[in-house]
């Protein structure tokens, strides 16, 4: 079965995407890369039980999220949006705490960060973005919701229901699909009927755009336009960032069972950092000094995150009970007493 590969849009950079912006993006993408590397190392050292790498998707995540207004927008991530978290200014130690399995949803404050708690249910958070956006319009607010999901997630019923709801309500939502070609071991060809997630948009009467997800400027352009549209009350959009998961699905995965190392190598050659750097070198927005400084800053930041998450205290067992309800119940208090008497370490 072959899949018609959608031709990604290669638009001119959005006016916002000037030299300063490019430098900021590059720095954050590089920082995401370095944190990612630290995380993989932490997993190898046994500090993280497992980790899901975003390597290769830094442009799709960072350059897209850089268009968000963190005063009013809200992002709904899956488990792989570390670059989005970083771009939005989420506390990265709190974010990484989830990968150390300290707390499933992470230890940052999702409400304050405007970045929902990590969500491991593929497709599950997408309708939340729609509800949030409907609520934002009702409030008279001007914020937009961005729903992140993968090519695999596009098969889930929730994603369809959410798109239909959003378009019916003309809610200010951007559906942002990172099509990294693989959903664990299943390639697009056996996942996305018709071969294009973006093409689904039309069926809901909303624009669906495929962009080169490794091209920071293209991703940024698509996201900025979709946000403008949403803010103008013109309803939702669907963006498909065509990219590639160059690492295994997670550190527990073994890609040799299902894909060609050649394919990985080819995509490593289209590294979004290299591409952005080349563009910046060409248009002069980044010189050698900048790139050197960026490398240093990224490394320092990554090391700080690594140290922070490695030494973060384990949650107290009482936390098992604290957040189940806002209004506690006698039965749970009783169970907490059992825990206190019979379990507490």
């Amino acid at each position, binding site marked *: 079965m072959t899949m018609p590969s959608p031709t990604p849009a290669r638009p001119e950079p959005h006016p916002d995407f000037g030299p300063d912006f490019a430098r900021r993006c590059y720095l954050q993408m590089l920082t995401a890369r370095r944190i990612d590397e630290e995380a993989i190392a932490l997993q190898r050292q046994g500090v993280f039980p497992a980790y899901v790498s975003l390597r290769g998707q830094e442009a799709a995540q960072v350059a897209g999220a850089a268009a968000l207004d963190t005063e009013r927008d809200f992002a709904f991530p899956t488990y792989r949006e570390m670059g989005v978290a970083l771009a939005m200014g989420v506390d990265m130690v709190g974010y990484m705490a989830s990968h150390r399995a300290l707390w499933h*949803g992470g230890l940052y404050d999702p409400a304050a960060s405007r970045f929902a708690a990590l969500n491991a249910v593929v497709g599950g*958070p997408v309708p939340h973005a729609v509800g949030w956006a409907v609520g934002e319009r009702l409030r008279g607010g001007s914020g937009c919701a961005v729903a992140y999901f993968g090519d695999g997630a596009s098969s889930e019923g929730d994603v369809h229901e959410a798109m239909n709801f959003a378009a019916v309500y003309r809610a200010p939502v951007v559906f942002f699909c990172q099509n990294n070609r693989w959903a664990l071991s299943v390639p697009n060809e056996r996942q996305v009927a018709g071969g294009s997630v973006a093409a689904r948009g039309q069926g809901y009467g909303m624009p669906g755009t495929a962009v080169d997800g490794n091209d920071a400027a293209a991703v940024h352009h698509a996201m900025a336009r979709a946000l403008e549209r949403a803010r103008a009350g013109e309803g939702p959009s669907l963006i498909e960032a065509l990219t590639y998961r160059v690492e295994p699905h997670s550190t527990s995965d073994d890609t040799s069972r299902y894909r060609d190392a050649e394919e990985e190598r080819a995509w490593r050659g289209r590294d979004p950092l290299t591409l952005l750097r080349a563009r910046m070198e060409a248009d002069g927005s980044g010189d050698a000094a900048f790139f050197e400084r960026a490398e240093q800053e990224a490394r320092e930041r990554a090391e700080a995150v690594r140290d922070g998450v490695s030494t973060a205290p384990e949650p107290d067992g009482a936390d098992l009970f604290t957040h189940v309800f806002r209004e506690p119940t006698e039965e749970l208090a009783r169970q907490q007493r059992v825990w206190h008497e019979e379990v507490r370490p």
Partner: protein
Amino acid sequence: MTGTITEAAGAADASAPRVREMSMQQAVNAALRTVLREDPRTLVFGEDVGALGGVFRVTDGLQEEFGAERVFDTPLAESAIIGMAVGLAMNGWRPIPELQFDGFAYPAVDQIVNQLARMNYRSRGAVPMPVTLRLPSFGGIQAPEHHGESLEALFAHVPGLKVCAPCDPQDAYRLLLQSVRCDDPVVYMEPKARYWDRRPVELAHDPGDMPVGRSRVLRRGRHATLVAWGAMVHRCLQAAEYAAEDGVELEVVDLRWLKPIDAEGLAASAARTRRAVVVHEAPLTAGLGAEVSALVTERAFGALAAPVERVAGFDVPYPAGPLEPQYLPTIDRILSAVQRTLEYKRP
């Protein structure tokens, strides 16, 4: 029908509580009006809840009074309805979604269990979920397939959810107010078979001495305790009438809150009567009756003269019309169970 509903709605207008006879369906409607009025963050939505007023007219007139922004129809997709409720709550609203019928809650189970019930926990309290999920529930109206199901055991098992089921108009009013005012997600199960049951209702805004999790003794008795919720409470009261004719005095406890369960209240009653029978519509195996039986036994074992009896639906799919009365616990089955507890002799 519309006329009387409007009348009921009118009753909720005044601030002073007053007593008025109304059906449970009207009482829920009045409670929805109360919360929509008292808290501008509340929203009512679901399939056909707008212009139609819901298939049971429970949301009748609400869209007219509160506008299509606060009371609105959704497309036909249960998972998205609950997913949207989660997102609305994340943006500061207090959603009151309706799922049209019990059996159509199943497509939403993932959003209920994996998202709604644990968002507060996942976010360590940063993102509470003050959502009241209204679910017309249980059987007894000879409805089509999937329109007579009892999902309380499923919901009660889910950490992070609270669950209640009223059995009469007064409690329907009170429990809905409590559910909506609660900062935790509550599944509010409306017994369809009692929608048209008319009783005097005091439109009080205060639950008084009936906090979340408290059961009620609806009839005092000393020979055995019947425990039930929803429409089965009524059936237990009828059974108690019959038993009284034979000199058997049954205590009837309306559980009301299916999570948290009033274990102490149950145990106290069972300890007094030394015998208990729990009655529910859901299939027997792994039904909430097992939890009631276990709780009562754990807390009142020494006082019990007989094992707790369970009278429940059979372990079969909820049947069509003519078989429904043979599926649901009958008064005879309840009385037989009472009889067994009374005659029980340790071997």
